């Protein structure tokens, strides 16, 4: 096979893996949007916050250490213990549930019945709040997240595919972490689908997504479902935060993946879980291939910054509800 084609295949595979990570973030959006009609901009910051909390708990950091030191003139930094990864993940999940409860109790409850755009803006405010709060709690420095996931390229794959090409080709390079992320994402989606199909709470969740008032009238507690959904979204954010954090460190830019998830949602449609996955894959592959074939050689590179948005924009002009979204019907 010609090398150029092999490189293109490699780029495609890496794009697929990146797409899975986008889809992970988009999944959190879809969950909340379906259940409450809220477009949760804070999803990216939730991922960042979850990852920060995980690292903080794991390393035994003292929360608000910086603030305490500034106010009382003390010198506290760490408790001096290390929490095992599994326990830390569980604790972080608890923190995210607590967060979901607080959001429902103090924000959402008061905004019932407001226009969608107000709710959207409230989540932007929430995102700012959490960003500052996370930094204040755990410090703003870049942290290394290590929960024992494999890192680096897969040598096995590289060695066993090198024969495909000529001199300049050294086999497919795929990050092991990306493979793990793919598997985790698959498990997560499968369990989410199973949860919403086969459990009582899952069915209640779908009922709320379908029609708030009808769900209320048959005795589904809207507020409980909202807490549940935000907790689930927090859990998805935790998983996404672990994956992205292990890949590129826990830092502010992590919260920007939320922006990358937006075009994914627009492509896939806001209301569809399969849409989030397919949209993520299309965007992941699309932007990597575009960068490889057109961006880097002709446009000076870094086209990944805007390609996804442009693709989504063009796509929406022809199909405003996205690939799998419900058809938008307007009545006067």
């Amino acid at each position, binding site marked *: 096979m010609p090398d150029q084609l092999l490189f293109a295949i490699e780029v495609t595979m890496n794009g697929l893996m990146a797409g899975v990570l986008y889809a992970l973030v988009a999944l959190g959006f879809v969950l909340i949007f379906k259940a409450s009609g809220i477009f949760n901009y804070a999803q990216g910051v939730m991922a960042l916050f979850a990852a920060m909390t995980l690292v903080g708990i794991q390393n035994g950091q003292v929360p608000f250490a910086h603030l305490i030191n*500034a106010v009382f003139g003390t010198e506290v930094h760490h408790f001096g213990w290390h929490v095992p990864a599994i326990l830390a993940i569980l604790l972080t999940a608890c923190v995210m549930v607590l967060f979901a409860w607080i959001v429902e109790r103090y924000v959402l409850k008061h905004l019932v019945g407001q226009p*969608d755009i107000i709710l959207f803006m409230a989540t932007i405010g929430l995102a700012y709040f959490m960003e*500052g709060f996370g930094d204040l709690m755990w410090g703003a420095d870049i942290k290394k997240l290590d929960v024992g996931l494999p890192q680096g390229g897969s040598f096995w794959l590289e060695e066993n595919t090198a024969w495909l090409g000529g001199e300049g080709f050294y086999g497919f390079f795929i990050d092991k972490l990306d493979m793990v992320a793919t598997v985790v994402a698959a498990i997560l989606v499968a369990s989410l689908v199973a949860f919403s199909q086969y459990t009582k709470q899952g069915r209640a969740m779908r009922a709320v997504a379908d029609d708030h008032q009808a769900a209320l009238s048959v005795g589904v507690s809207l507020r409980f479902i909202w807490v549940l959904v935000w907790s689930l979204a927090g859990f998805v954010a935790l998983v996404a935060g672990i994956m992205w954090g292990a890949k590129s460190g826990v830092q502010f830019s992590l919260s920007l993946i939320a922006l990358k998830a937006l075009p994914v949602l627009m492509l896939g449609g806001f209301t569809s879980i399969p849409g989030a996955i397919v949209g993520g894959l299309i965007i992941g592959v699309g932007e990597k291939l575009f960068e490889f074939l057109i961006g880097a050689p002709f446009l*000076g590179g870094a086209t990944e910054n805007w390609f996804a948005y442009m693709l989504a924009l063009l796509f929406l002009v022809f199909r405003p509800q996205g690939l799998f979204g419900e058809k938008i019907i307007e009545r006067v």
Partner: protein
Amino acid sequence: MLYREAGDFKTSYQKDSQTFPLKFDRMGYWTVMVVAFLVVPFVINDYWANAVAVPFLIYAIAALGLNILTGYAGQVSLGTGGFMAVGAYACYKLMTMFPEVSMLVHVVLAGGITALVGVLFGLPSLRIKGFYLAVATLAAQFFLVWLFNKVPWFYNYSASGQINAPERTVFGIIVTGPNTEAWAKYLFCLIFVVVLAWIARNLTRGMTGRKWMAIRDMDIAAEIIGVNPLMAKLTAFAVSSFFVGIAGALFFSIYLGAAEVGEAFGIQKSFLILFMIIIGGLGSIFGSFAGAAFMVLMPVFLKNVLVGGLGWPTDLAAHLEFIIVGGLIVVFLILEPHGLAQLWRLTKEKLRLWPFPH
């Protein structure tokens, strides 16, 4: 007791439809004008101009622009930073191409160029609505920033990739570059603010503004009563981008002096201006000013209190600023979704009845 209509008789339609129907308001307005034009320029120093007055005036223009698009026409935009960048780079290119021409012309032309770009990115709004449009405007934001980073022609092939404002004048007075006097910066921005606010006020209460509001309230119904959605949406994008472009041009040339596109006009700027109009009040001219003032003054205030007063490290103050801004936005949306402007309106209503509220 002064604040009421009683005794303030209107004898013509013109008087009946004036912006400030109460004599007290009119007096207040002219007092503000006199102070702004005749007192402040003589007392302003570099600190007040650079930290408070100039950013406030420039953000007020940007907030007016976004408020026209989002508050009046109902089209949510997250591309304000990108459009400000268009204004800044257009202004820079014009400044370096035609050094002899007055800055006034450059800034207005930069606004015009931004209006054209705005219309181009406004075209999808005919098909896309609501959130989808908000996300679509992100395409403008990221694409424009990328464009100004990657095409060296825009920054005149400078090695650093930055744009630097050369010294330019208006009627012989230096308004850009390092040798500018504080009062010149201030007055130059103030003139733009007053003229643009006047334009915005009169556009929004005229036919154009009513069309925008009809589209905002329900676009299908608006179309049925004869509002052309194409024209209404595109004029909203054009006027809004014109304002935002002027704000961008001033932000770069007067306030910053040197700008790097990703840093000065990134997505954060778009959100900042969106917050201004939410906190100030959507669909209100006064709200644009109030929001801009609030978002400019609050960091200055926090910094003075926390860093200057309590001696905390600056990064803590920065984190707290995030928390407070985010918290305030949520609180505002819960308590008063119509922002500071609504509070102001309520105050005025109360004042009118004071001291006998029944």
